[in-house]
């Protein structure tokens, strides 16, 4: 098997879900014959006739229809063309899908795929990281796969879950991230992963920021510092056991997140670590998010708007008191 991209892993996971479970279907703009704006559903309409189809330009209806289909026992996977457009289907996600189980006892097994995060030139409306927004609402599972393996296995798990899943797949990783094979064994849903072992500080991160963090850690390794990195994988629920265990080892915490700072993943992780593991911290925990402005479209602005390996390395140095 030749190497598989993150994007192809998502396509393969959907293909497997369709093949394995007759309750699965795909709905979204251009996901049918065209195979999706990013080709995440390429060939699937042909392979699974009547189960992969184009929706009108109606995010609210797309999610609403998925909710209804889920009540009837189906397992819809819906694609938003970009995460940013999910604001138009926001009400159905947070007020219908997310509340259904609590209110009625009937679960709502939908998967909403959000092509997320920044890419060069994407601009304010094709770059957003919306994981914190959805994680704020009770009832939603929010996944943020950072590797090809996780993109594949977590999407399959998302489909298997009875609860609604917001699946934040990162566009920056679509083409560049590659793997030789699909995973055989996987971590359970809600478990974070130790992406890199270290002893001097812990970086807690997710999504595309995992790779920036790894690059920063590599840079710092050159100076003799060993940074441990926790990839959250799902930001809700949060695997505090893994995070706290790492902080217990290192005593230092940096949270790196691409979404905006106020109330973001980094804020939540720091709040949790400090209230649950205050004594583990030797110094003030730090965070690094995107800047608190819309995501600029110009590549030169964008590349400093989001956290980069060099910015992460710089904050890490401060954290390490170098």
């Amino acid at each position, binding site marked *: 098997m030749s190497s598989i991209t993150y994007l192809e892993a998502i396509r393969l996971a959907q293909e497997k879900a369709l093949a394995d479970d007759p309750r699965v279907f795909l709905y979204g703009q251009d996901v049918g014959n065209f195979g999706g704006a990013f080709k995440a559903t390429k060939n699937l309409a042909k392979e699974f006739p009547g189960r992969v189809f184009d929706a009108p330009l*109606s995010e609210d209806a*797309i999610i609403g229809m*998925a909710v209804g289909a*889920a*009540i*009837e*026992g189906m397992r*819809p996977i819906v694609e938003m063309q970009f995460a940013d457009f999910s604001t138009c289907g926001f009400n159905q996600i947070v007020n219908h899908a997310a509340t259904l*189980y609590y209110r009625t006892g009937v679960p709502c097994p939908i998967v909403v795929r959000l092509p997320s995060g920044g890419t060069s030139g994407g601009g304010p409306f094709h770059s957003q990281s919306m994981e914190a927004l959805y994680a704020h609402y009770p009832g939603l599972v929010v996944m943020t796969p950072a590797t090809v393996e996780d993109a594949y296995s977590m999407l399959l798990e998302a489909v298997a879950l*009875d609860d609604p899943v917001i699946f934040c797949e990162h566009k920056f990783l679509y083409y560049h991230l590659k793997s030789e094979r699909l995973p055989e064994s996987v971590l359970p849903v809600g478990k974070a992963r130790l992406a890199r072992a270290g002893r001097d500080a812990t970086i807690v991160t997710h999504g595309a920021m995992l790779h920036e963090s790894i690059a920063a850690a590599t840079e710092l390794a050159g100076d003799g510092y060993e940074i441990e990195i926790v990839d959250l994988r799902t930001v809700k629920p949060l695997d505090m056991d893994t995070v706290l265990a790492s902080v217990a080892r290192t005593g230092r915490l940096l949270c790196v997140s691409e979404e905006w700072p106020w109330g973001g993943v980094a804020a939540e992780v720091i709040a949790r670590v400090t209230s649950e593991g205050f004594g583990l911290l030797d110094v003030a925990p730090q965070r690094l998010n995107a800047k608190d402005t819309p995501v600029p479209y110009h590549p030169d602005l964008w590349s400093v708007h989001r956290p980069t390996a060099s910015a992460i390395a710089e904050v890490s140095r401060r954290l390490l008191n170098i």
Partner: protein
Amino acid sequence: MPTFKEDATVSSSEFIKAYRVMLLARVLEEKLASLYRGGMIKGGVFLGRGQEALSVSVGLHLHKGDIFAPLIRDQAGRMAFGDTILDTLRTYLGSQLGPMRGRDGNIHRGRPREGYYAMISHLGAMIPAVSGALLARRMKGETGIVGATCLGDGGTSTGAFHEGLNAAAVEKLPLVLVVANNQYAYSTPNSRQFACLDLVDKAVGYGVAGHKVDATDLEQCLLTLRKAVKAAREGGGPQLVVGDLLRLVGHGEHDDAHYVDPALKSAPVGRDCLLLAEEKIIAKKWASRAETSAWRHEAEEEVNATVDKVRREPGPKPEEDDWMAYSKSEFAEHYAGA
């Protein structure tokens, strides 16, 4: 357009059946209003007085296995579809034994597993949900199914209405969307809500069938819904039914509806569909005044007995609730303090 010659009348038994459900809904809602004034109700009370004829006609034409997503003013339609006095009172009186276990209440109640959907408050939102349910049924190979949902004149202004009806039309789903134009959305009159001559004029813009009915007239409602539901069931795609009527109560029981134009109250649209139906029964000699009184009495007895029973039921116990928004208990988060 097909003509339904054989369908053009309503039998006395069908009419009486509908009337009695309307009457039961009316009696039950009068009780709810009285319990509200007595401070016995948990949450708000939004009643369907004056809208029973249209609502009941929706519920009566649905079968077991169909889908119904009622809205605010559908007590009659709910009961016609199978909801009970007991479930109704359990939600309003806050019994733990109600279908929503105290977590949500009143007009939001439902039993989704039985095709009886539990509305969220955001108007229009049930339209795509029912559409998606119908799509699911189609994918499962079920045929002859109908999904119905109701809406007010105000609800037609929502993006959800538009997106939902359009998507249903594209898929040619068996959706029956019933708009009760009761002339107001809370205090807002039609003139501030839309500018088309008639809401049914929207049908052509979606490529769906449109039906118009005087919703104070039970017979017309029954005939119109019979036709619309049949058309949907037989593959005719979405049906938009618009009924004209007047809300004969406040928006909620806290509202005195002083803003309602007196001219509307005295116009034909302001007539009480229940009274009109009763007059027809009498005029047609399908029953005597004594019989209709007995029916009302019977309904009152049943409602009162159920109130007595439900009042003795326990409310939800916070310490027994699992406080889980997820079906998987591993997903419970433990927030410090909480």
